């Protein structure tokens, strides 16, 4: 059992899967000699060579499109998109092609690829190096979307994603890369896709979150404990397919829920969770389903004063929970 950072869990898991499966390849911008701009693939080029760790041209549609073809012909590509913000040029290949290959061919073809991308704000990345893009992809049938919040889950979910036979988008919050550490067993464990987790038990309010927001939700829960407000925190972990049962069980128990996401509020991923609560847990709700989110501006602004204004933080979550608890 080793303690490691979030990114170290990802790097070593990529390494392990490359050793385990000779058909796995990694491709993307700067993933080779440089080891990725965040060093998530550091050392893999040296171990596996340029045939299995490919530095591609600066063309995201090609990175995903070629991965689809390579998957169809027997490889298991794990492309990296340098920043989630730059996945947009590949949107057509992901949404029109990867997501639909199996359904449109009536199961004749599949598309086992895992697209990794760092996402999220709070790192002085401004509009184009801070985005949360999960809402776009979790809406698309045929895709799976994963966002781990701990090194343990980062490894377990990455293994499940790479071994999965369908296209998975695996988003890594770049602010957690080196700030979050945790226990990571060296066993061959996996965390199955499609399972959420209660990461803190509580009785009064359920806070539902994913990625960095789980860490913040836990901090908020700590802040509220002295005031005797008991908070349950649920980590979504897999955004699609969603483990609705675990979320619903929590809310049916507490009767109150706060959905937290860093992305822009309107039409963000948490809207679906709130909608499910309103439809599935209505009889159990003792208060409105509250959302704590980023504001509806086109991106995280750069200047620290503006970025601070944009970002959700533990205090804002705590304040919302406090209000709802008193409702």
């Amino acid at each position: 059992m080793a303690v490691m950072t979030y990114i170290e869990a990802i790097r070593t898991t990529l390494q392990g899967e490359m050793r385990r499966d000779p058909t796995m390849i990694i491709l993307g911008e700067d993933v080779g000699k440089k080891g990725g701009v965040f060093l998530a693939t550091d050392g893999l080029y040296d171990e596996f060579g340029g045939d299995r760790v490919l530095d591609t041209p600066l063309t995201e549609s090609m990175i995903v499109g070629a991965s689809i073809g390579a998957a169809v012909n027997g490889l298991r590509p794990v492309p990296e998109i340098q920043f989630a913000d730059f996945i947009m040029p590949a949107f057509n290949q992901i949404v029109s092609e990867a997501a639909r290959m199996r359904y449109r061919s009536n199961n004749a073809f599949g598309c086992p690829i895992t697209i990794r991308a760092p996402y999220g704000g709070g790192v002085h990345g401004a509009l184009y190096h801070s985005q949360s893009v999960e809402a776009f992809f979790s809406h698309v049938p045929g895709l799976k979307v994963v966002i781990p919040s701990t090194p343990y889950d980062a490894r377990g979910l990455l293994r499940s994603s790479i071994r999965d036979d369908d296209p998975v988008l695996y988003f890594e919050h770049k602010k957690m890369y080196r700030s979050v550490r945790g226990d990571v067993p060296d066993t061959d464990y996996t965390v199955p896709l499609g399972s959420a987790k209660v990461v803190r038990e509580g009785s009064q309010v359920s806070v539902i979150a994913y990625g960095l927001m789980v860490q913040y939700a836990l901090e908020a829960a700590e802040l509220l404990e002295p005031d005797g407000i008991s908070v349950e925190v649920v980590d979504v972990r897999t955004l699609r397919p969603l483990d609705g049962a675990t979320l619903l069980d929590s809310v049916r128990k507490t009767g109150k829920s706060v959905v937290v996401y860093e992305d822009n509020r309107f039409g963000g991923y948490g809207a679906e969770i709130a909608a499910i609560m309103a439809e599935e847990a209505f009889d159990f709700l003792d208060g409105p389903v509250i959302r704590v989110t980023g504001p509806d501006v086109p991106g995280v602004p750069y200047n620290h004063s503006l970025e601070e204004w944009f970002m959700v933080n533990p205090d804002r979550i705590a304040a919302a929970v406090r209000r709802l608890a008193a409702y």
Partner: protein
Amino acid sequence: MATRTTEPEKSKAKSRKSAVDTELGADLGLSRDDLLEMYRLVALARALDERMWILNRAGKIPFVISGQGHEGAQVGIAYGLKKGLDWMVPYYRSVASLITFGMTPREIMLAQFARGVDPSSGGRQMPGHYGVADRNILSVSSPVATQVLHATGIALAAKLRKTGQIAITYTGEGSSNQGDVHEAMNFAGIHQLPVIFVIENNGYAISVPWSLESAVEDIAVRAAGYAMPGVILDGVDVLGCYRLAQQAIERARSGGGPTLLEAKVSRMTGHSSDDQQTKYRSAEELKEQGSRDPLPRFNRELRDAGVLDDEAEERIKADIKSVVEDATDWAEAQPDPDPATAQQHVYAESPPSRMDDPLWGGARFMGDGGPLTGGEA
């Protein structure tokens, strides 16, 4: 999965014994049987296509997208591929390419009727969206040119896995202006991948003439921007297409890298059964292109060379007639897909996960007496 079907079809292209039994085929390594088979394929593709229009007018299939005028280039280019080894990544006009590569007329017709056993999509996609897994024919989608990157990825896998396969992909000249084509050729050039990019240039993207699609006369010149050969093929010259395609196939097979083939063809019909091309093409232009029909041209060539005679032509005609009849009647007789299957195959594991199952908590199914909420169910 794809349904194999037995049917009274002669073909299944002969083992390529380069018996020099004709002048014409000599330096091409094509036997008399090969030449007759190539003719049969061109004529069969045309016959299947003409039947689609008849079925469309009869109201039996709502949509036709046609390859008439493209068949000569398609058969010439594809005839030298290795079935069962190589990959074909086609587009919606590829019927002649597909039957040359082993897709059967029954399978072609199943796609028109969108029947449940249709190997292309089980009736899920529009006609023209072909694909047969067990013959390495990748599923066609509608957004143009995306497949050019898939073929490139297939070739990358072939190279890394050392399978000896080559991938060939097809698209139209209008679609060749899409960014994906640039990105694909760039990547294929860097890694010298065993892939062949075929552009079937019929001069129109629906109504938009080539003069408004691009400033260059020939797309083939773009190959130089990716350090690969760019070759122009005369689409009415079946054997000329075969000759030049063979060079590209051998180059790819021997590690020589990708090739861009531009086949100049004519679109002898409207863009599709939804299009009225007289609105944007002049009468004389439409008349002129009659002379660009590969079928009579090939027929004359084979007759002049003494390869084709009345007896052989009659035999082929009869064979094609029965094949088209059989394919049409058999396909039409197959059942529609069962709506109960419509939710299958969203993901590999089935049934798909709870939240992806439309029957789950399905407000839209409340009228069917389903549960009001998952909680109470």
